[in-house]
């Protein structure tokens, strides 16, 4: 990992010095033990703070979209002849690059506006799994030592294997190496257990509908409508979300259970064929709502019905924005 980090910093520095990018979106160490946070580096000398390790959670494509669209909006107030282009460099692991492909296919920005600093990924630590393993004890000190976490809690010191606390989506990840990249920092990472990708969804599907609905209701009852899931999601980039439209108001903003369910169902369905399973929505949720089971079901459907995996290649269009003559139509003719 250290070698990858070193290479990443060198390449980032070079890109900024040669003015090939205006900003690098990456990760830096957080203020709490065992955390990393998104970072925006514009000064070449600041590239030393960039990190790449198993604590880097967020899908950074969300920020690429933010930076580009904010810049474009600001340019609207500039005379056409004085307008500039902003180039964003981004530290891209597999899922991040899949989201970037989706953005490119959905024409959110152009390939020339981004430079992808590819990094191999072995998965990230699920903070909630770690917390459960530590029986809820607060982490007072922590250090990442290769494949192990050295953790100090009130109960004493402990060594935890990173492999034991990887996020569920990372364990079965099919795309843990960048799908597109302009530069690669390090050799490709070994494959994860992608043959088990849909095992959990299949188990969920096999349960009776009452049980599935009860599970959905139970999970959604935890939601406090902070919208962290939507905000963290690279595929959720509508300038105005239906949940915030007021003329008409599609969904109430209060804690009524049906409003929360409608919000989440709508968001989940907007992810049909567009979810890259980066796990960001689950990682940011302060209440631990299981959104992934439902999102993964739609992902499975998109693959099984249309043979499409979002962001698998630039040439493979997103499933809901294309039509092929012989694709699945059973749901229309024999619902």
């Amino acid at each position, binding site marked *: 990992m250290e070698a990858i980090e070193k290479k990443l910093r060198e390449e980032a520095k070079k890109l900024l010095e040669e003015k090939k990018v205006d900003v690098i979106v990456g990760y830096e160490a*957080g*203020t*709490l033990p065992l*955390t*990393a*946070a*998104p*970072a*925006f580096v514009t000064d070449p000398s600041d590239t030393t703070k960039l990190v790449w390790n198993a604590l880097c959670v*967020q899908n950074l494509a*969300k*920020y690429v979209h933010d930076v580009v669209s*904010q810049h474009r909006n600001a340019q609207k107030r500039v005379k056409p002849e004085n307008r500039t282009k902003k180039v964003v460099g981004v530290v891209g692991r597999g899922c991040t690059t899949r989201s970037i492909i989706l953005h490119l296919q959905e024409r959110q920005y152009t390939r020339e506006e981004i430079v992808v600093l590819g990094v191999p990924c072995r998965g990230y630590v699920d903070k*909630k799994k770690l*917390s*459960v393993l530590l029986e*809820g004890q*607060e982490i*007072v000190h922590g250090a990442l030592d290769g494949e192990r976490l050295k953790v100090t809690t*009130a109960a004493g010191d402990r060594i935890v294997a990173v492999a034991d606390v990887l996020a569920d989506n990372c364990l079965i990840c099919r795309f843990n190496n960048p799908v597109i990249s302009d530069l690669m920092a390090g050799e490709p990472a070994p494959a994860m257990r992608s043959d088990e990708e849909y095992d959990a969804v299949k188990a969920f599907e096999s349960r009776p509908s009452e049980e599935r609905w009860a599970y959905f209701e139970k999970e959604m009852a*935890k939601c*406090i*409508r*902070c*919208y*962290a899931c*939507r*905000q*963290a999601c690279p595929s959720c980039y509508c300038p105005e979300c239906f949940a*915030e439209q007021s003329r008409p*108001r599609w969904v*109430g*903003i*209060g*804690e*009524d259970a049906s409003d929360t369910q409608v919000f989440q169902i709508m968001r989940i369905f907007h992810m049909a064929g567009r979810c890259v399973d980066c796990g960001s929505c689950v*990682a*940011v*949720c*302060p*209440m*631990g709502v299981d959104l992934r089971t439902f999102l993964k079901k739609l992902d499975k459907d998109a693959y099984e019905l249309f043979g499409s995996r979002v962001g698998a290649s630039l040439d493979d269009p997103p499933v809901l924005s294309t039509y092929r003559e012989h694709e699945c139509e059973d749901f229309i003719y024999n619902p």
Partner: protein
Amino acid sequence: MEKRLVKKDELLRIVKKVGAEFNVFAPVRVEDNVLFKSLAPGEEPLLTFANTKNAPKGVFFPRTEVMIRYVRTPKGTVLKGVELEARDAVLFGVRPCDARSFVLLDLLFDQDKYKDPYYVAKREKATVVTLACTPVPYTACFCTSVGGGPVDGTGSDVLVTDIGDAYLVEFLTPKGERLVKYFGEAKATAEAENKKETAAKEAIEQIKSVIPAREVKPILDVSFDHPFWDTIHKRCLACGTCTYLCPTCHCFDISDEMKYDDGRRLRNWDSCMFPLFTKETSGHNPRPTQKERWRQRVMHKFKYYVDNFNAVACVGCGRCVMYCPVNIDIRKIVEDISKLQQ
């Protein structure tokens, strides 16, 4: 002031007894979360916990609250009622920081000039039983920097302190003294009070996070246009985690909901982090980007509230620090502001 000594294994039974007569709110484990909520019949409150994920402010200032109901008739809209009923409630196991938040919220919702009837009705009927922080629950705790303390009784009617072999129970207000009868007959001894003093001192020493919360006010007074505000918001997701979990955040939004001819006016939590916050009917938003929204959040807590009420609107519970999904740390922000060059 009445003081009692309660055996360790007695406390749970006492809470249950109180629960038979009052609507008790307490920390409860719900799956992986510890939540501050109304105790359902048969539900066990937690006595050993760090702090609840949600702040107890929701008891007085719910996330959603019906203000009025009305009905649409051919002759116009007719008011059906104002909802102001509140039940006698006991809030058990509040942490001292969160108890202090009630005093800060009172400054706004229960002023001499303006009284919020919905808040005041619930607040007046509630007795706050605080469980002191011995030991201090989190490394992110910084209550001592904002005027509180791990064994501080501000905002509490009853203060319960774990002194090792027993709980020392202090009844701080007349409201609190109504509960004395539930806590047995054993009067507090001088030895127990000494133990409490020692535990309090130890707890204060355990707090390692210190921020210049009061000191930044004169700097903020002249820093509205400072370039510093360009540096903190970039990674912010614009979610409401910090404000929704915060014990002192109290911005709200009022909306009407109709079902056929029946209408209700609701007050819902709002968040300065949301793009819709302060958006005007015209479409104009005086806080168009996350930069202005972050400035509002910091200014509201460390300047405006000081201007209006001479109090910092932060109790140092550490929730926003621990649960921000992208690690925006208010402690670092305040620290950085204190070092700003004008």
